């Protein structure tokens, strides 16, 4: 069954470019910003296509521009040169179309809102009617295993639960694209493993496109269909490593030779791209 699904995925990946345009297409993308001690090149010559249904991880040492790239996709930063489209339009239009959900490093829940209130926040902003809001909040809290916590306030939840609530919030308006910026970076290993597995289930279930920033090699290899290794100063793509495990993989695959091989390739890529001058 696993192999059937794997073939499925490979099939889908092969067909995708032909039938549907990429969700994200960046060409020679650069971003330079002015710091107090002169210009800093955060991104340089980024070429990247992400197809529908992919789970792409951006991995690299801090300062390699992976978060910046994600923020350019989300129209939280503007590129200074090159071109980028999201769903075939400019990032700004894509943002105005509300075509992505963004999960930040910190849960960024509003402390004065209950968990249900936080998950329903984007729905309120986007003007969903009340009944549908309640329905969607309920559904998405169930999706992240937080049923029963609707009326709790954020401080009453653990860090992992808060981050799950923030994922439910990003999913609540059902965007096709999920942008995640080191969402589990602040959590301990055990919670992180668990959430990785849940995220993979979610991705499999909802068939969304995910762009995932991380600096953990096992996390990237476990989650992704493709790993983009980035290197710093200036931030650029060093290597793209395909990583086609079946969609319903479990944590056990981390002990397989295939997993370790890909992890090693990523590690090498990171080492090559990282120069200590």
């Amino acid at each position, binding site marked *: 069954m696993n192999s059937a699904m794997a073939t499925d995925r490979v099939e889908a990946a092969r067909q995708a470019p032909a039938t549907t345009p990429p969700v994200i297409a960046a060409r020679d993308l650069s971003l330079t910003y002015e710091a107090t001690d002169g210009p800093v090149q955060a991104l340089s010559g980024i070429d990247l296509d992400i197809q529908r249904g992919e789970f792409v991880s951006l991995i690299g040492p801090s300062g390699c521009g992976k978060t910046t790239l994600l923020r350019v996709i*989300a*129209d*939280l930063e503007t590129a200074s040169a090159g071109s980028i489209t999201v769903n075939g339009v400019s990032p700004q239009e894509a*943002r*105005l179309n*509300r075509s*992505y*959900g*963004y999960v*930040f*490093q*910190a849960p*960024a829940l*509003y*402390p*004065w*809102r*209950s968990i249900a209130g936080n998950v329903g*926040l*984007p729905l*309120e*902003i*986007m003007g969903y009617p009340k009944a549908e809001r309640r329905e969607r909040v309920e559904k998405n809290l169930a999706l992240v295993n937080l049923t029963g916590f609707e009326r709790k*306030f*954020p*401080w009453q939840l653990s860090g992992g639960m808060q981050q799950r609530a923030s994922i439910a919030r990003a999913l609540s308006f059902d965007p096709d694209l999920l942008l995640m910026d080191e969402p589990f970076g602040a959590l301990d290993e055990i919670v992180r493993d668990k959430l990785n597995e849940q995220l993979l289930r979610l991705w499999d279930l909802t068939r969304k496109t995910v762009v995932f920033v991380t600096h953990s090699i096992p996390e990237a290899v476990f989650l992704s269909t493709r790993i983009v290794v980035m290197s710093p100063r200036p931030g650029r793509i060093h290597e793209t490593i395909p990583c086609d495990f079946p969609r319903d993989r479990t944590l056990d695959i981390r002990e397989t030779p295939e997993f370790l091989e890909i992890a090693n390739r990523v590690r090498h890529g990171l080492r090559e791209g990282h120069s200590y001058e």
Partner: protein
Amino acid sequence: MTESKRPPSDFPDIFSRGEKGAAMADAATLPAMRARRGGASRFFAALWRGAVGPIVVVCAAIVALWYLGAVLMNADLQRSAFENAGRKSWTTAELVAGTLSQERPKLPAPHQVAQELWKTVVDTPATSKRSLVYHGGVTLSATLLGFLFGAGLGVGLAVLIVHVKSLERSLMPWIISSQTIPIIALAPMIVIILNQLDITGIVPKAAIAAYLSFFPVTVGMVKGLRSPDPLQLDLMRTYSASQAQTFWSLRLPACVPFLFASLRVGVAAALVGTVVAELTQSADGGFGARLLAGSYYGQTIQIWAAIFAAAACACALIAAVALADRIVARRMGYAR
């Protein structure tokens, strides 16, 4: 028996609560004098530990200092009073008793002020112009009106400043310099100008109260409206929220704790403003009018009673704001 173990300290209990039993045993066996000293030290140590103890100790110290001050400050007056009465000699006890029962002392004793407060608050009907309840009502109504004006103005200015960048630079210097002018100098001007415009009664006093109370509200609200962190703001941007939506869903709820902190300062400032205004516009009564009348006629006891009544009112106002703060905080999930 345990002499060697226990140093002859006067406050062993502060450091060694567990030895209380041992200390008791000591007290029983030691000579009477040491037992009394030990008892006194234990008494004070116990006072200092409790929740009420420190408050009682501080209050007692203030009252004691006050009595001492009253005796020292009124002594000269008392000596000349004795001399005027033709007395050549008097005992210290007579002198002290005299200093604490003068009709117009330089510094009235606490019990004199308490008596005056009792007389003017409880014994006088609230409708009488001699009642502090009547004057309190006059002051409080102007204070509350002014506080409403001031808080509204403060919030409005803060919203403008946060949303219109050029206004911060053009308004803030005026807002700050408005608070550098002594209100005692400005209050009569405001009253006269408003009277020229046929605005009389409670409004001029409320205007001065508002003048003092808007400032902390503006400063606190500007800080509060800017308190959301970049992540929380980015989140709103990812939803393509409008500026109004960001204001109502993020900036305003985020600034509530700041708002209540500044309202506490603002409400006390409003009371001060009203009292200052009443010094100018004293015909209407109020605590300020009582202070003014007291200083005309050298009625120091009346002045101190009015001061204490005003302070009590300010405490009550601050407590009311604090109560509102707690209710709102609980509803917003801030209370833990």
